[in-house]
């Protein structure tokens, strides 16, 4: 059985609203970091003109990922700015000329399924397609692993409370998404593709079913509305009742987020780097919660100003949802492709009490570790070794469920640090 529980989801406030395009600002701020916060090497020169989609920097690691300009204009400098994880990172400042000039304009492809595998992998790499569920893992790496892909799982579960970006992508671009999945099936000789949604998502399910007749290898499946069922291994267990011990691809299963599939569509169709994304701006502190299409490098303050501003002056500005996200000390921070949502919440004070030994954290942890035992043995390395805190996926469910309001997730993260010392 997959572990998890139904949690407060507060999705209604931004659900079923059209996607609002954020106007381009005068400047964009592109952080010089890629997957796993890896620093990148700047390839250009300050003062140079850059085209939209031009590669600005590259990561010097095995993933060899690029950083791309989301506008055309002049590079005005590089300075240390606060990144989405509150650290200071080198950031390229580009003055927008609002011309959206591209170096080499390629027309849209009529058919997107006549690429070879290698061409697709190269395109995904050169266009900077990454996992859009917040991990930022390079998508080309998954497809390029030289293992047979039997099943493609398209994760449209979107477990984080308040978040509806994936839902709106699916609703707005259903035919494009199906076209991309169909192309991937053909190019990679995939046996079947399954779009997975939560069972309450009736509108999307019926919309998808309308198209299904023409795509025989694509199926729609639903899973229970529990958190964190969107976690890759939980999703696979819920679908096939198999326990994945290493990488799902070794069992022939590849999981992509629905927004990643939409990016794959754009890349196959237009062969241009991905420099924008759809994200949710929500929370009780946002005047008009909604989903927005925003360019990479736009400041959060700018986005929120354009959609009507904040409702109150003091609160928690959280990047990537209230369960896994982190608070920011300022909204003067640029969004990246890893940001699927921003929420502004009231700071509700919870009294932390002693553990009442209810066992809820133990029985809810999706990876079956014992948060309370880890917390109790934080200073006991030999016991900690047996309790395997490093298995934690930082879903936050233990802290959510704890009746004594103990932040077990942080205790577990802390114990990983202690254990590593």
């Amino acid at each position, binding site marked *: 059985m997959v572990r998890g529980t139904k949690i407060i989801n507060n999705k209604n406030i931004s659900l079923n609203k059209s996607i609002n395009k954020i106007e381009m600002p005068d400047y964009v701020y592109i952080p010089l970091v890629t997957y796993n916060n890896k620093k990148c090497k700047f390839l250009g020169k300050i003062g140079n003109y850059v085209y939209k989609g031009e590669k600005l920097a590259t990561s010097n690691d095995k993933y060899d990922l690029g950083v791309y300009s989301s506008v055309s204009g002049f590079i005005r400098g590089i300075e240390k700015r606060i990144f989405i994880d509150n650290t200071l990172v080198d950031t390229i400042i580009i003055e927008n000329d609002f011309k959206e000039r591209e170096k080499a304009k390629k027309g849209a492809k009529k058919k997107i399924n006549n690429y070879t595998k290698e061409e697709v992998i190269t395109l995904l790499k050169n266009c900077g397609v990454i996992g859009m569920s917040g991990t930022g893992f390079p998508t080309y790496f998954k497809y390029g692993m030289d293992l047979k892909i039997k099943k493609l799982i398209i994760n449209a579960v979107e477990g984080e409370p308040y978040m509806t970006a994936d839902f709106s992508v699916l609703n707005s671009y259903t035919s494009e998404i199906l076209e991309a999945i169909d192309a991937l099936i053909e190019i990679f000789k995939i046996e079947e593709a399954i779009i997975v949604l939560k069972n309450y998502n009736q509108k999307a399910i019926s919309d998808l079913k309308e198209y299904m007749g023409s795509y025989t290898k694509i199926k729609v499946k639903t899973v229970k509305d529990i958190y964190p069922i969107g976690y890759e291994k939980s999703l696979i267990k819920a679908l096939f009742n198999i326990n994945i011990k290493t990488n799902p691809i070794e069992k022939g299963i590849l999981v992509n987020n629905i927004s990643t599939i939409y990016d794959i569509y754009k890349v196959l169709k237009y062969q241009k780097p991905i420099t924008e994304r759809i994200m949710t701006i929500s929370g009780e502190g946002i005047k008009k919660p909604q989903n927005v299409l925003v360019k990479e490098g736009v400041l959060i303050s700018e986005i929120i100003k354009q959609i009507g501003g904040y409702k109150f002056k*003091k609160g928690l500005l959280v990047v990537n949802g209230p369960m896994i996200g982190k608070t920011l000390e300022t909204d003067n921070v640029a969004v990246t492709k890893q940001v699927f949502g921003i929420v502004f919440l009231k700071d509700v004070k919870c009294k932390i009490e002693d553990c009442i030994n209810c066992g809820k954290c*133990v029985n809810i942890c999706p990876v079956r570790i014992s948060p309370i035992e880890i917390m109790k043995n934080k200073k006991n390395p030999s016991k900690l070794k047996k309790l395997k805190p490093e298995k934690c996926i930082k879903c936050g469910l233990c802290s959510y*469920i704890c009746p004594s309001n103990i932040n077990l997730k942080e205790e577990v993260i802390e114990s990983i640090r202690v254990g590593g010392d």
Partner: protein
Amino acid sequence: MNFILKQGPFLHSKNNKFNIELTLLITLIPFVIYKISSNLINNLLLFIIILVSSLLTSIFIDYIKGNKIKIENYMDDIIYILIVSFIIPENISYLFIFLINILISIIRKYIKFLNYPIVIGIISFGFLDIFNKSIILSNFNLYIFIIISIITILVLIINKSFKFRIALAFILLVTIGGFLKQDFGTNFMFLIFNSIYIIASFKLTPNNAFIQILYGLILGVVAIFLPIFYFYISIILISLIFIYVDKNYSYYLALKKGI
């Protein structure tokens, strides 16, 4: 704008400690009302004595210690008072119960380990044999008791206020035992009440679901075969063993790969 830095998650389940205790407290009320109504004057007097002796002692100790006197700090005491009011023998001396409650309240305040109904329950149950348990629930109607118990169990399961796996496993075996022995009298009713508020309470019980079921089953077997007094004593031993087993089971689960 003032952006506060804080560690997440930023949402919490509404099922907090206070709500859990409040649910336990509310579900105890029908049992206590039923008990009082079975011998109004005597049992009401006993209830008032237990309430006054326990609560006032607790409040007095907090006052001396300079602690804040807030209702949520006494939920535990009230639950204890209600449990004891239900299980207390009717022929007990008023003075004895007054003094023993003051003593227990002092112990509970200073020894955190004892600050939960389980140990108190065991101690109180210990008196049952001494004070002739047969008259305690003799006025009770089994069917009314069962109806109250079923509603209570459902409410507690819905509100996640006790370790339901332990309770259900234990009740299953005790019920089988009842059929085998053809005995659904006082002992049976005690064991059911016991399973809800003492055996399946949070403190001193295992946490892993599988171990909880085992614990409930083993205690059920013990309850069938041991005389009730020895059963209460064995709870302590069995719970300590199971807490040890539970810890090792956590290591085992953590070592397993995958999810």
